[in-house]
Structure formats: structure tokens, C-alpha cells
């Protein structure tokens, strides 16, 4: 979707603020918000791209101004309400109705399992259509759902530098459909994406699914 989350290349932002850069959490509320989010999502097999998309639908002003894990928590709560695990009345009154019994809340063992097991997003899928070294052109338009082709890289020509296997396709995942598609790393000259950088030796690399691409 053409949301404010799609920040790459947007202009008008000031210097990067490095305050508190060595603290893992930025205060107790930040730490609690993180832990609540990951615990709430834990046992529920929501696709990660549905989580990402639900965050993208936060009001634009809130998206740009609220703390990062505060947004995560609001996203996880919105997902719980959407799925019927929690009601807006309960949030508004602060009073819980009958407790949810299944699945049981994530316990310490489940947390340890998640902390030590990398998720695998590669699946059986179609053979890649593009070879390493191929010139490819990205789609000119997005769509109103979740997608991982940033706006700054639309309608651009780049070079496939690696094939990564068939990975779960995020646009489908955010719609509850599990489907894998060839994933490539595509390199773009920075000057081809941003006119003021013409002639720059810099390269911007993106990981892009096959349906975002056509032979360039």
C-alpha cells in the first residue's frame, strides 16, 4: 500500500538522532511493549506479513510519531481484536471478560524455543525465471495490500546479483495465503533510483520476488 511506512528515499527528514543507542530497550514501557507483542503473537500462527501489514494500517500521524514497540503492541492488540481473542469493549473498559483458554499463553519453554530456532521462509516453488546477471525492471505500480517492493524502487532497472531460493510471498502471506515464489537480490545504481545521484558508484541492493520483476 502507498502508506507512510514506505519511507525509503522520502525527503525532508533531519539528522539521525543517536541518543540512547546502546540501550537494548528505551525504558521499562518499551521493554514491556516488546515482550507483550512477541508473547501475544507467539503460539498463534499468523503470517509475519499480516503483522507487518497491520502495523502499516496504523494512522499515519501515529505511525510517524509513536515509539516503535508501542506501535508493535498496538498492532498485536489490533490483531487480537480482529481475530476475536479480545474485544474493543474490554480495551475501552480495561475489564477482561472470560479468559481465553486456547491456545495457552506462551510459557518460558515456548519463549526459549522461539529464541533459539530460526524461522525458515524457504519453500518448494517454481524454478527461477531470471538468471544471475539478468537485467530486470521492477513493476511501475504497487497495490493497496501489503507488498515489499518499496516505492522508491518502482519502475527501475537493475541487475540480478543472486537467486535466494523460493521464499514465502509476502503480498500473499498478508492475505493468509501461503505461496512461495523465486526471490532474488537485485542491485540498482543509486543514480538510477535518485536523479541527483547520477554518476555515483553507490549501489542499492533489494531482495525482490519474481512477480515484482520483468526482463528489463
Amino acid at each position: 500500500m502507498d502508506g507512510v511506512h514506505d519511507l525509503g528515499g522520502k525527503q525532508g527528514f533531519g539528522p539521525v538522532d543517536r541518543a540512547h543507542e546502546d540501550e537494548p530497550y528505551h525504558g521499562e514501557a518499551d521493554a514491556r511493549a516488546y515482550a507483550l507483542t512477541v508473547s501475544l503473537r507467539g503460539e498463534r500462527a499468523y503470517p509475519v506479513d499480516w503483522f507487518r501489514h497491520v502495523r502499516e494500517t496504523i494512522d499515519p500521524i501515529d505511525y510517524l510519531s509513536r515509539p516503535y514497540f508501542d506501535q508493535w503492541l498496538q498492532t498485536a492488540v489490533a490483531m487480537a481484536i480482529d481475530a476475536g481473542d479480545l474485544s474493543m469493549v474490554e480495551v475501552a473498559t480495561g475489564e477482561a471478560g472470560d479468559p481465553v483458554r486456547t491456545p495457552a499463553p506462551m510459557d518460558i519453554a515456548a519463549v526459549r524455543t522461539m529464541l533459539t530456532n530460526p524461522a525458515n521462509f524457504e519453500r518448494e516453488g517454481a524454478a527461477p525465471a531470471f538468471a544471475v546477471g539478468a537485467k530486470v525492471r521492477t513493476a511501475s505500480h504497487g497495490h493497496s495490500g501489503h507488498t515489499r517492493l518499496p516505492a522508491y524502487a518502482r519502475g527501475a532497472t537493475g541487475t540480478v546479483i543472486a537467486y535466494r531460493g523460493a521464499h514465502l510471498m509476502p503480498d500473499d502471506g498478508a492475505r493468509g495465503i501461503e505461496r512461495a515464489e523465486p526471490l532474488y537480490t537485485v542491485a540498482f545504481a543509486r543514480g538510477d533510483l535518485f536523479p541527483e545521484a547520477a554518476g555515483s558508484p553507490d549501489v542499492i541492493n533489494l531482495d525482490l520476488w519474481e512477480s515484482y520483476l520483468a526482463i528489463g
Partner: protein
Amino acid sequence: MEPSYDSDKVAEIHRHLHSHLPPEPALRVKALESLLVEKGLVDPVALDTWIEAYTEEIGPKRGAMVVARAWTDDGFRARLLADAGAAVAEMGFAGQASGHLKAVENTDTIHNLVVCTLCSCYPFAILGMAPAWYKANEYRARSVRDPREVLAEFGVTVAPDAAVQVWDSTAELRYMVIPQRPAGTEGLDEAALAALVTRNSMIGTDDLKGFDPKGAA
């Protein structure tokens, strides 16, 4: 119930949450925590386990150990560049977002910089929690368009004829930078080398040029 996968529905839920929850983040979190615990959706003990994992156990020291080993062991360096997920698993560091890890190496002519412009994807298992600036709008917006200006703000200068290679983490691959080993570190062992590798150098916003070999002797 299953998720609706309906963008308009969840956007409306967000607007209601905005009106029903206190605006102050600490109060919001407190209100939601007591509700979620009472509702049986989260276990308070598990919350502490999550928080402690990233304060006491998982952090950039892991990445620093990986880099130091790559600097001192050519076989490991080759395995790290070929399949970083497997290489860090050898060291016992497999975890969140390490499954599709990719290591990219700085050279005299290439400086790598990692960003996630669309959300804030980050290799938690290797680098711990992302710093606040990595998740901030400024870094996400500017590092693909003006990477050299962003780097200059961190004190990193890349020669005009060298290339900045930016990696925008748009899929489930996660990137870590192998910085160049600083000059004057020939006599240091793996542990001493790990101690000089900064978290920012593994994102690309530090080149370790500030390292003083005399201070380490």
C-alpha cells in the same frame, strides 16, 4: 478465530484503539499489560523471559565474536560468506532472524550499510535489539537516498571512488557487515579483537577507524 486479512477492518480497529487508550506510552502499555494478563493471553513470567533474553544473553557481543573469528580463521570466514546462518549456528547463535542471514564484507573499495526502509528488520540473534536510530524515520528514509550523508553523521567517510553498497532488507534475508580489521591489531587474539568490534560497525555506521592500537596494547 482466524484473522480477517481485511486492511480496512484493522485500520478501523487502530482508530478505535487510538481513542480508547491513554496517549502516554507508559500508561498505554500498563493498561494493556494488565488486560492481556487477566484475559489469559500472556503469561507474566514469559514476558520477563523475553526482556531478559535481550538484556542479558543476546546482543552485539555475539556478532563481534563472529567478526573476530572471520578475521582470524579463513575457513570460518569462507563459511560465513557462503552461508552465514549455518556459520553462526556453529557458534551456538542460531535464533530469531538468523535463518536467512547474509554476511557482507567491507573492502578498500566497498563500504556496506544495512537498512530496512519498510519496517525495521534486523538480525536480532546476532546483534540483539536494534538501536533506536535504526528504527527511526530519519535513518529509514535517508540511508538509501543519501547514504554518504548519513554515514558522515556517524563519522564515516567513504572515498569518492569507493562504492557504498546499501542493503535494504525487503525480504527475510538479514544482513550483517564484516568490517575491515583495523591496522595495528596483528598481535591481538580473537577475544581482544571481538572487544573492539562495535555494534554499529556490523550495521555499517562505523568503520572502526577510531580504534587506537596503542590503547589496546
